[in-house]
């Protein structure tokens, strides 16, 4: 199954929920959805065969003022689908980082939502155990993976020239 064929199948599966679908480098498919529909999209994707969350990525676009939350879904059981990673992506405003949890649909998102919570300060409503997982609470307060958290380091020669 080529990436174009998979995109067609995802389009017919999600219908209007999929606002935009992009193929990156032939094996990574990014599906843009709305925050409101994320649970329904996740349910449909799971029935389709993407049975676990490969990883939960949050990207901070500070200048644009939003976080992009990407649930990268993978498949263990379906050989054809397992070649691809499908990222279900949506944006939430930076000043109100609250979204819904997918814990009850994908158990594999459990610790990853906790990671996004501690590193970006994003609250996943409905998660039964939303605590920092890697960081200690005082460090998690700093929200270290946000772009406005600056790492103090010696400036490099290359960045000086720039």
């Amino acid at each position, binding site marked *: 199954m080529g990436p174009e064929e998979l995109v067609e199948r995802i389009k017919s599966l999600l219908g209007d929920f999929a606002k935009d679908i992009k193929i990156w480098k032939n094996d990574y498919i990014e599906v843009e959805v709305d925050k409101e529909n994320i649970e329904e999209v996740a349910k449909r994707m799971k029935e389709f065969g993407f049975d676990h969350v490969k990883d939960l990525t949050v*990207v901070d676009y500070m200048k644009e003022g939003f976080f992009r939350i990407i649930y990268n879904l993978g498949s263990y*059981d379906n050989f054809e689908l*397992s070649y691809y990673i499908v990222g279900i992506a949506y944006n939430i405003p930076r000043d109100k980082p609250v979204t819904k949890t997918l814990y009850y649909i994908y*158990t594999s998102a459990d*610790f990853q939502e906790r990671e996004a919570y501690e590193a970006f300060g994003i609250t996943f409503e409905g998660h039964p155990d939303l605590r920092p997982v890697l960081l200690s609470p005082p460090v998690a307060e700093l929200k270290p993976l946000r772009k406005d958290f600056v790492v103090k380091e010696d400036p490099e020669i290359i960045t000086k020239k720039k």
Partner: protein
Amino acid sequence: MSGIIRTQGAQVGFNDLKLPGMWSRKIGKDLYEIFIGPQHPGSGHMRIVIRIDGDVIVEADPDMGYVHRTMEKLSEVRTWIKGIPLFERMAIHDACNVTLPYVRAVEKLMDIEAPERAKYLRVLLCEINRIAAFLYGFGIFGVFLGHSTMYMWPFGDREVWVELAEWLTGARLTHSYPVFGGVRRDVPAGFTDALRKAIRYMRKRLEDYRKIFVDNPVIRARLEDVGVIPKNLAIELGITGPNLRASGVKYDVRLNHPYEVYDQLDFEIPVFQEGDAYARVWQRVEEIKQSLNILEQVADWLDKHPRTPILHDKFWKTAPPLYKKIFEETGRAKLGAVYAIMKVPAGKAYERAETARGEISYYVESNGGNKPYRIRIHSASARNALVYKYIVPGHRVMDLPAIYGSIDYFPPEADR
């Protein structure tokens, strides 16, 4: 709560008993909370908070992060090439496997591909690393089960593979071997003969391991039907690597999303159906055998093919004549200054690889600058950590080390 160890018999209260390395408190009738770790016989630091009724665990809460080094953030303030030595610190004895997907993701963004010889060399070191990491895991497992022979033997035999890696790359553990567009060094003269000798030795030793450890009745009693992960639960939790395959799921990135030259090599993906700790031990033994088969094929290929450039032209064409002369004489490709100033075209790439402990994935996003905009790493041990929360409850306390060891959990890799 008092922090004093109360020793006098009449005063010992179980409500706040303090033991070295272990802290417990009563949280209900017949229910105690015990903190195990972060110091324990395993590798790296990790704590599990368990609640026990008698000696049956009713709840387990893995407490990770003791070796967290904020790699995702650090990578954002360093140039692209500096990511390689940074990320391999996740699992230093599995360095080639954990950095390869990063290198490949950046290559994808730059639309380049390593030369064929470099691909074979990458597979060569990946499999050497994989065997060494499995042996390391066996050693830790032996410690957990109090089986001191199984601690000494694999650690001694691991030296064979570490020495081979040192001969190939110049470093015992943190090799930084794959770089964008290729690898750093070609095989030295006489390497493939030594490799074949190591393969023969390892096959013999696996038989010895079977006799003293895997078929040992004590070990079987400790491991059989312990920590069973059913197939559907393994998929639901996103367990990965040998642990997933020991639960009956045929999934290996080398098979499902082939990278480098794995699609040209002949090997099998062993799968076990039982899903218990004992199946996970056999799984690793079988995987070492397959890695040895792969190494044999790579050695044959290297013997048949003459030395050709091991770096992509984009980088190799900028090398001064002196560098090319050094490469012809010694097989070492010195990295040009172009690596320090390279910029990567804007875009996103997702790449994964099968490490010894399972699948590692990198999400790499570039905005066209000389540093990554965002790198998200999710490593094999981080996926497997869910086992403690969902599988351990219901077992006895004595089963916990058996499950911990059989999962081959490696905290530095999980914490990143």
